[in-house]
């Protein structure tokens, strides 16, 4: 199973990490990088191992660098409206395909629109008519030999409703495609998905796609990528900021805004991002605290320096500092690469990771540290239940 870097504004961090042999490629994000820069400054060697997400999620809204891409609908027709797809969809497909082929990306990715609260049948119709048909026709004319993925955004109602899920599955697997770039759109106030039914159904969906010999590349996942690994997707992703580990459409809207997040550090033993202030409590209250963090060649020592006497503001963790994210890329990638290839063994492996994490959380509670629900292990019982439900659904 591969791990792609889900890139964003700080794509240089991902490129640097990839240069350190962490990750198997990148998912490029045009909203964050100027088209010319992507064409001229990013090496073909990197692009050949990566793919490009065209991000026509909101076709009327070329946020940030999206306007620099010739395929973006508002560059094809100014004041583009949804109904203009009928007239312009082949031009969009032609330009978008050309861009991806010229840059020699590993896959061709067919984009998808973001549509909130619409019936699944309308979603299917919209992707088919506006994207899949024109892209596949254009692709055939190009006579190139690349694998083609379609972007599929599965929201909570699509995933949780068995009938919707099956209809989408039947439709997508009937298309002349090699696979999907699968994005789960799950909205919650929590930083982890604490919903066993959603997680279990998502795993079933991945598994069903795989059984239909589709490649499955999952974008925008957080640590639940470990859970998805049990359905054996071709890849999962690692991302730095929270909006790269949880798909949020507001990333493509003008006023993203909001309060900056608190700095956090990923604990491989707790399977959770822990708010940094809590980590400051650990040395005094929890003697084996360093064991919660997998050793790292480069970054952990720098991060732990934040805990030293020097409390000058400059040395303090901040959500914009790169080290915690570089550390996550390294450690999570290692966790994924450590997974057994055999799925039965992998399931046992992940169950064991969950059990160990729950035990460590008990030790932290016993050490008189009270974590809030975005740093604690309250997601783990949902993971355990999701595994049970998934295995039951599979007849295991």
């Amino acid at each position: 199973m591969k791990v792609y870097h889900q890139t964003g504004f700080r794509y240089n961090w991902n490129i640097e990490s990839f240069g350190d042999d962490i990750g198997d490629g990148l998912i490029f994000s045009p909203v964050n990088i100027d088209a010319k820069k992507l064409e001229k400054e990013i090496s073909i060697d990197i692009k050949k191992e990566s793919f490009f997400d065209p991000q026509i999620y909101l076709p009327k809204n070329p946020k940030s660098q999206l306007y620099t891409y010739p395929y973006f609908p508002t560059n094809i027709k100014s004041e583009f409206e949804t109904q203009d797809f009928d007239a312009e969809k082949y031009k969009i497909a032609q330009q978008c395909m050309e861009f991806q082929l010229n840059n020699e990306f590993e896959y061709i990715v067919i984009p998808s629109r973001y549509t909130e609260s619409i019936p699944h049948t309308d979603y299917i119709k919209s992707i088919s008519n506006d994207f899949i048909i024109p892209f596949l026709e254009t692709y055939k004319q190009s006579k190139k030999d690349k694998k083609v993925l379609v972007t599929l955004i599965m929201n909570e109602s699509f995933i949780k409703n068995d009938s919707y899920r099956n209809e989408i599955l039947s439709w997508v697997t009937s298309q002349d495609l090699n696979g999907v770039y699968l994005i789960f759109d799950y909205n919650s106030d929590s930083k982890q998905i604490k919903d066993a039914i959603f997680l279990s159904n998502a795993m079933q969906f991945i598994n069903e796609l795989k059984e239909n010999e589709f490649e499955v590349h999952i974008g925008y996942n957080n640590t639940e990528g470990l859970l998805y690994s049990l359905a054996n997707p071709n890849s999962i992703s690692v991302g730095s900021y929270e909006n790269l580990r949880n798909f949020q459409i507001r990333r493509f809207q003008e006023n993203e805004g909001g309060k900056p997040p608190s700095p956090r550090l990923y604990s491989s033993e707790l399977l959770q991002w822990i708010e940094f202030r809590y980590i400051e409590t650990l040395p005094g209250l929890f003697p084996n605290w360093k064991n919660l963090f997998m050793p790292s060649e480069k970054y952990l020592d720098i991060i732990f320096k934040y805990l030293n006497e020097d409390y000058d503001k400059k040395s303090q963790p901040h959500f914009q500092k790169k080290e915690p994210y570089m550390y996550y890329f390294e450690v999570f990638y290692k966790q994924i690469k450590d997974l057994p290839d055999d799925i039965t063994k992998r399931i046992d492996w992940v169950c064991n990771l969950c059990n160990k994490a729950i035990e460590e959380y008990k030790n932290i509670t016993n050490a008189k540290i009270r974590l809030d629900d975005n740093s604690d292990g309250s997601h783990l019982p949902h993971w355990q239940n999701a595994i049970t439900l998934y295995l039951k659904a599979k007849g295991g």
Partner: protein
Amino acid sequence: MANFSSEEEMSNCFKKILQKYQKRFNFKFEKEVEGLWGVPDFILYDENLDKTIAIELKLKNWGRALTQAFKYRAFSHCSFVIIDKDFVHRAKNNIDQFIHYNIGLASFNKKGKIKKIYEPQFTSPYSKFTLFKLRQVLHE
């Protein structure tokens, strides 16, 4: 039916009590100090910040209040949860949690009566950085 109609009412009433006693017991206080970790409803402190007490007022959700109050131990020597008298019984039923995390518990009513239920030990703040920020904020 809560004794207080809102946390704002509770906070205003509590502020009056602090104002009444601050000269007698020689302490200062600040309401809703931002930029630390969470926003404590009140911080009580002495001139040199040798003793700081953070206070979280809640009408009823003791669990959330306890989690918040634990965060305040990052920069204070003592952290208290104060709950509306009519709802404090639920927190009292879980007093072992307050003892375990060394967080004080008291009830408060509209007449301004504070009843101490558990008094925690004073300990050193566990985040030097947040303590540094507190000093900056309070001495500005």
